[in-house]
């Protein structure tokens, strides 16, 4: 992991280091086990196609978790995640390349905490933003 990011290092508009994921059916099964969501559309191709889907689809919750990792990787061990949200606007199929991205939208001090708001999203292999969201983190400050 890269070094700790400090609030002073951050500017509005800064791009967060992207995180690339290519969830295989195997990973979706692993996620099903770890999260307890065993809905068959996520690992049984016949079942998924029977419901009209082209292939097994990635759990929305796994995409939420990928975006969580995007932010926790970036903020480092001294950062504190306060808010994390995303909307499942489009479905993503297994084995597609999902790129998690983010930019800093606001930097401010609140109750003497050094806060940063980010816009975050997942872009699939077709360049579609299927999973837009936002995050708020507290970063350490070099001033104390």
């Amino acid at each position, binding site marked *: 992991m890269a070094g700790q990011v400090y609030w002073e290092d951050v500017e509005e508009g800064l791009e967060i280091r992207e995180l690339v994921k290519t969830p295989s059916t195997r990973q979706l099964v692993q996620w099903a086990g770890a999260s*307890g969501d065993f809905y068959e559309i996520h690992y049984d191709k016949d079942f998924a196609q029977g419901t009209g889907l082209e292939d097994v689809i990635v759990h929305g919750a*796994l995409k939420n*978790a990928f975006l969580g990792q995007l932010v926790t990787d970036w903020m480092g061990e001294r950062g504190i995640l*306060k808010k994390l*949200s995303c909307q499942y606007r489009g479905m993503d199929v297994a084995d597609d390349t999902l790129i998690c991205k983010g930019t800093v939208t606001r930097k401010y001090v609140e109750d003497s905490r050094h806060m940063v708001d980010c816009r975050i999203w997942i872009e699939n292999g077709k360049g579609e933003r299927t999973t837009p969201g936002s995050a708020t983190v507290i970063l350490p400050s070099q001033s104390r």
Partner: protein
Amino acid sequence: MAAQNTFLTEEMRQRAIGIEAESLVLEVEKGHIRRFAEAIDDPNPQSSDEVMARKSPNGGIVAPPTFLRAARVERPELPFDLPFTRTLDGGSEWEYFEPIRAGDIITAKARISDIIERSGRLGPMIITTIDHTYSNQLNEVVATQRTTYIRY
């Protein structure tokens, strides 16, 4: 807006809002945290490496941000039937107050905070907003989660 609703009357909305699911308890196990992080393919040592995690500001293993969905609290049941069979998860908004540690005993609650009818690309749909509250054994709220659930 309410006047145009076909499936959901104001009276039905008011009956649904406030309904809670039965709360449930999740004991947070270290191995479960590690398996959850592995399923994300998240190598963060704070969730998997006891030695590194001890040296970090959290002072021990903590769960990844969305771990609490493994509590799998049931969605509160609507007090009426709707003629839709297909469902979609609309999204999730988390807010965090305390780290979630191995050994924590988390009580998960879910309550319907809103329900509306909309017409969209998929035709008419019912969007339910559910507020989840997760508290630990010290009665601290560790996180809240607002989810939306779409029937169409």
